[in-house]
């Protein structure tokens, strides 16, 4: 038997799974949430006119492939309860929560419309997550609370609602474990001086991406109007000492620059100011973004970190920032401010990680080392250090090759 457990169904886990399956290895993929894709589910494709190589579709395409793969067992809404060392690897116990919706679901959304619970108890998959199956939150659903509501079941055209679904305990014996739990975005509201959580029109980049992914257009949350003057602010929560994290989150410049280009593609009249410390766009030749910004009359790159956002006149936002040379202070009004947030590793110090012997460094990232790998535990993806989707994919493929290398030498 040759099986590998993959913890986490984000870009790293999916790429690792696909590469393993291509090499003839069976995989068990355990994902905590209801659909595959991880962080990429809520991110938007940034190529309205041309492909901007943001990598979001890469992760989502792999999710679709893995679901069709006969050698991959995908366990959603599941968590690894324990992993104990066995003869040739690990014996893992997996707890799978019931979904209450079968594979017959075609994602029409009729059930969500009729659900009487405030805030709904039946949900579509988050963002562009795969598979496109709905799921029921047991703690909110009236069928389980009061024992009589079955509105969603009666309206479902394919009879996909199954209240008899039960939680499962699954045991698998695997040869190796790939630990790819990914990241959590930093909460922009930790930086309260920038108005997040106080002013409605200050949104984090995660929210902006989600709205763009769902609606295709970005609106002001306060009045639903199209913004005409936007500020994008880098390094919110990253590269700071007092709040947030000290390291650079690496991918924020990449997505923020591409999102700015997307915003200009959707509406060429937008005035966009881009506040940054260092422009660390990855993989882009010759600072393509700088050249692009130069070619657009309405885009300004400002090397400065704004100090505070205040409410301005007529519902606008007032942003105070030092000039590029630290010698002057400017105040500018904006319709919408986007805060580019960084990341923190997710689950690097969870119980499972500890029982597998994964240690963390001083920034909280899981440390991959040879000792761990010789025991059959491979740390992969952004839980080990900051990286973007493209690098994650590269490193996941490299991790798989390491795994096969060890099998050949027989350690």
């Amino acid at each position, binding site marked *: 038997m040759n099986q590998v457990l993959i913890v986490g169904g984000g870009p790293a886990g999916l790429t690792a799974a696909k590469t393993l399956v291509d090499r003839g290895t069976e995989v068990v993929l355990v994902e905590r949430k209801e659909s595959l894709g991880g962080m990429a589910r809520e991110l938007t494709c940034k190529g309205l006119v041309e492909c901007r*190589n943001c990598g979001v579709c*890469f992760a989502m395409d792999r999710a679709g492939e893995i679901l069709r793969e006969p050698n991959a067992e995908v366990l959603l809404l599941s968590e690894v309860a324990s992993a104990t060392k066995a003869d040739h690897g690990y014996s893992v116990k997996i707890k799978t929560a019931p979904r209450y919706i079968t594979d017959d679901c075609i994602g029409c959304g*009729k059930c969500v419309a009729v659900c009487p619970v405030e805030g709904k108890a039946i949900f579509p998959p988050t963002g562009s997550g795969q598979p496109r199956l709905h799921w029921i939150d047991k703690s909110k659903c009236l069928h389980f609370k009061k024992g009589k509501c079955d509105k969603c079941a009666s309206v479902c055209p394919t009879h996909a609602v199954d209240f008899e679904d039960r939680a499962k305990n699954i045991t698998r014996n695997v040869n190796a474990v790939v630990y790819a739990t990914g990241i959590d975005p930093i909460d922009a509201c930790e930086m309260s001086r920038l108005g997040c959580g106080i002013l409605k029109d200050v949104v984090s980049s995660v929210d902006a991406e989600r709205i763009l992914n769902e609606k295709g257009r970005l609106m002001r949350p306060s009045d639903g109007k199209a913004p005409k003057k936007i500020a994008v602010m880098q390094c919110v929560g990253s590269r700071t000492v007092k709040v947030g994290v000290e390291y*650079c989150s690496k991918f924020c410049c990449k997505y923020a620059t591409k999102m700015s280009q997307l915003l200009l593609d959707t509406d060429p009249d937008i005035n966009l100011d881009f506040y940054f410390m*260092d422009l660390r766009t990855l993989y*882009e*030749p010759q600072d393509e973004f700088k050249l692009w910004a130069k070619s657009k009359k309405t885009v300004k790159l400002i090397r400065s970190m704004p100090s505070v956002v205040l409410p301005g006149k007529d519902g606008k936002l007032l942003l105070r920032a030092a000039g590029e040379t*630290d010698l002057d202070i400017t105040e500018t009004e904006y319709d919408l401010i986007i805060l580019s947030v960084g990341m923190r590793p997710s689950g690097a110090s969870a119980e499972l990680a500890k029982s597998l012997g994964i240690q963390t460094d001083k920034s909280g990232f899981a440390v991959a080392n040879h000792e761990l790998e010789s025991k059959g535990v491979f740390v992969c993806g952004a839980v080990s250090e900051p990286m973007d989707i493209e690098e994650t994919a590269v490193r996941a493929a490299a991790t798989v090759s390491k795994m096969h290398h060890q099998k050949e030498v027989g350690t």
Partner: protein
Amino acid sequence: MKARIQVVLCKCCTEMPKLLNMEKLQKLAEDSSMVVSVMTVDAVCDGKDLARIVGEAKEREIDRAVVLACHKKDISPNLLKAYRRAGINEFLIELVNMREEVVLPHADEPERAQAKAETKLKAALTRAIMLAPLEKQSEEMKTKNVVIVGAGVAGQAAAHEAAKSGAHTVLLEKTSKSLKVPGVIMTHAQLVGASGYGGNFQLKIKAGEKVEELGAAAVVIATGGGWTTLKGPLAKAVKDAVPLYKFYEHMQSGMVPKGPVVIVDTPDPAGKTMKVQDYAWDDTLETVIQLKKKHPELLVYVIFQEMRAFGLSELAYKEAADLGVRFIRYDKAGAPKIDAKNPIALTVKDFSQGEVLDLKFGTLVFASIPANQDNQMIADALRIPMTVDGSIRRGSIQRWPVTTPKPGIFVCGSALFPKSRELAKAEGEAAGTMAGQFVKRGMIEYGGSVAQVTPEKCSACLTCIRTCPYEAPFIGAANKAEIKVQACQGCGMCVGICPSKAIDLHHYTDDQVMEEARTLLGGDF
């Protein structure tokens, strides 16, 4: 032309009827000529509906179909499979993305949405009548060779990986260094020419003095950065300036550097192109931290345009600053200058403070990694695009990372842009894996939507040959252009540029495109 068309209108559960008048669309389809069957279904993605559609197709003996549903990616695999079972060629099925092109963008304007939907339906019907069936073919790969250009960190990793999938690896190395890698190693070898297509390349390799021909299934480019080629006014003014890797070697061997050390990102700071990308940020920080720890009293300056201390390198940046390394940012207007008469002093304008600084230095180090000069030759040989920086341009990430736009050619390491050894190794492994898997398939599939030349119209002007990025056209035995179908990717560039309009792209012929456009835009446009 005779056709029996089936029209399928997908409701997308409830989404389409909410906005569109489905009865009107159905009526429009029914009234069109050559339409024999119109069906409105709840969801094409549902297996039961799909079975109904195919059942109807068989019963009415339809020979082509127009399906109005959602994105190709979502429905096409199952839909095409089902139609294939009913004996209908996949190129005879016209898919219209109603959901993303009509319903979502026009959610607030039902009238415009209805008009657009009707026009799109009419255009699809016009096009469907003109479609012709096409078949795909396959060819065996002649060799299992994977040629890896460059035997650095990335190249060696790629060789190890590709060999695991059963590929025969051939490593080309410019110098004579000896290596422990699987497969053949050719020293003093360079890739000078290539022809063919992914799966069956014919490469010309210059090994020593003679040029050899070699067949290859895949090529991995791992040329790395060009440390040794430092040119610019600063390098000219200061004769004993060293590149960073040499300085690091000297430091490791215990040499004490002379006087204040100044590390500049590039020897050509005021040059036409701002080569900020080239900066070896990781290595610079590692070097200055070691230097400062060994010699705390030594003055160390780092002069740069953009400090790209990605990810956890940021902590090294902070550590270096804490140790007392002085970081000075400049922009092009205040670029560092050296007086040729007094080559121990450097003038630079600090960007954030606005002050002009005069620095006396003992050692000048360049931390620049310019793109490898061999890239140009390799890109010309394989006909793949380059970036303005002179490195190899990667393909779209949609077809996996470390690929180039041309199938069968992979690129990794600093050939893309300067990066750390560890990441270069990971990229090499990924590229090797992909090349290995590519070779393992043993077959290439081709055909379908490809270009074709009408020999009577061709004047053999060679325009198509110069234009094609995939080297598909060639002059055949009849002195007319022909298309190598295996290499053609169906991009249509030759079709557009041919001065005698002798080339047609199957599935997108002039007639098909013009008729569709005429219906979409109305009348004579």
